[in-house]
């Protein structure tokens, strides 16, 4: 390990968190011609990397470390973006303008003119007995993914807690390796927080066909072990599922500690407006650490954990810091890979009051289109890329697709796009 490089005494823009959002803020500032010094401080030991493959191609071994990097060292050097890894920021002080200083764990300090918080989120853990046993893993960081990948190679019986995206992706990888795989979910269906029932059903059928078992509507009481090693997952009804590997995929907790210490408004995540401004006009935040105004439900705030959101919030922050016009609003979108299934999601479905299902006779694909007050707001597709592309385009132009016509799976959605009334 090389010695940590010293911090500069001062910088123009300090970005705390060297992940997807942090890197994008820095890169966008340079694209906008912003010329002041930029410093990215990250607490992880690795240079900035992408997380999505951690539960997909990296976990199943089809990609390696090198493909995870977000940018090359040359890029950062040429763009004059200083990156320091292994440097957790412990404390911040700011004045009324938002300028101030940061103190890293270990004592170094750096003064800055502008502050951007891009601290991401961490994996939620379960407040139950045995959660700290050897063989119980979460999946958020590269370190987590390396641990889990190594464990999968030795495991026989895997229990996944939580049927969200990360849990289902982990189950897909485990079952593809031929491991005995069970998913335990508190709700009565998969992806219940984000998806409508037909999509949950579709994924349930496919995972079952791969040999994955499901315990839905089921609470976990505790994780049982022997000599510190996990042995089984004990359910609320008293049954025990034997396991030598437990993957906890029960969501993420936004990293808000620094924001709270600064007295910024935090409601689950750091509250920001569409420009990425926090409750302190001079302090910005972007990515998984934030919550933003809900696009359909006034008075509600929404945390959107996606690469797209991290990037688009970061672009907005860069524009505000550079003092140029904000970029046009972007369509939220997300994807997930589960073996031969590619999920593509456009828009935000929460707040929908009806939906339409499209599925070809083969049964190998499905799209759910979500509507609110008659207007299209979102879609989720599995192996129907044209549906996804059409919906993303319609939403980007503030247009809609009439629900009745959309129900016919053989018509092209892009031919149905019309203005909203």
């Amino acid at each position: 390990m090389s010695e940590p490089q010293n911090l500069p005494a001062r910088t123009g823009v300090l970005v705390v968190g060297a992940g997807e959002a942090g890197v994008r803020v820095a890169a966008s500032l340079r694209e906008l011609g912003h010329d002041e010094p930029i410093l990215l401080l990250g607490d992880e030991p690795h240079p900035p990397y992408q997380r999505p493959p951690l539960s997909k191609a990296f976990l199943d071994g089809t990609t390696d470390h090198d493909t995870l990097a977000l940018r090359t060292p040359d890029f950062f050097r040429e763009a004059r973006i200083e990156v320091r890894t292994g440097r957790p920021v412990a404390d911040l002080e700011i004045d009324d303008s938002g300028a101030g200083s940061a103190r890293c764990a270990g004592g170094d300090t750096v003064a800055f003119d502008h502050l951007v918080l891009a601290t991401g989120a961490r994996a939620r853990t379960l407040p139950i007995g045995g959660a700290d046993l050897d063989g119980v893993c979460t999946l958020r960081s590269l370190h987590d993914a390396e641990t889990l990948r190594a464990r999968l190679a030795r495991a026989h019986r895997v229990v996944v807690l939580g049927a969200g995206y990360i849990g289902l992706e982990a189950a897909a990888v485990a079952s593809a390796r031929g491991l005995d795989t069970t998913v335990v979910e508190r709700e009565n269906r998969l992806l219940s927080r984000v998806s409508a029932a037909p999509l949950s059903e579709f994924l349930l059928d496919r995972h079952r066909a791969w040999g994955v078992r499901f315990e839905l509507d089921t609470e976990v009481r505790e994780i049982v072990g022997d000599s510190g090693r996990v042995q089984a997952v004990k359910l609320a009804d008293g049954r025990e599922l034997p396991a030598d590997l437990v993957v906890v995929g029960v969501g993420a907790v936004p990293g808000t500690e620094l924001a709270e210490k600064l007295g910024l408004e935090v409601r689950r995540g750091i509250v920001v407006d569409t420009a990425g401004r926090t409750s302190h006009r001079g302090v910005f935040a972007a990515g998984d650490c934030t919550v933003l105004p809900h696009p359909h439900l006034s008075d509600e705030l929404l945390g959107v954990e996606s690469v797209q959101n991290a990037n688009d919030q970061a672009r907005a922050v860069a524009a505000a810091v550079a003092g140029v016009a904000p970029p046009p609003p972007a369509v939220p979108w997300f994807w997930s890979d589960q073996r031969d299934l590619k999920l593509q999601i456009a828009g935000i479905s929460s707040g929908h009051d009806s939906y339409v299902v499209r599925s070809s006779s083969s049964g190998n694909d499905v799209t759910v289109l979500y509507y609110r007050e008659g207007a299209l707001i979102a879609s989720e597709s599995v192996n129907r890329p044209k549906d996804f592309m059409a919906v993303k385009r319609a939403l980007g132009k503030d247009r809609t697709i009439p629900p009745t016509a959309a129900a016919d799976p053989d018509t092209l959605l892009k031919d149905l796009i019309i203005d909203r009334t």
Partner: protein
Amino acid sequence: MPKIVFNSPDGSQHVVEARNGSSIMEAGTRAGVPGIVAECGGALACATCHVYVADPFRDAVGEVGDFEDEMLDDAEAERTAASRLSCQIPMTDELDGVEVTVAPEQ
């Protein structure tokens, strides 16, 4: 290492070295080539890594896959016979010097 020549929509040209096996998209985004968005990082989910492959390399880059084909149909910029999603082209020594033009809209 094989080289890739990128022509960006802003008129700039960038010559980037690529590891064998890494995609044209990966080499371009990591080097910060303007115009490639590649939001999904190569998962074949976004169609924002659309490029036009210059003539002499059209065959060498291989065939368009089925899923890629559907995504390309609805990409933002016009699809031509030279259109590819650059995350689907792994670099090899045979592709040394390949020239691609980044699509103007992604």
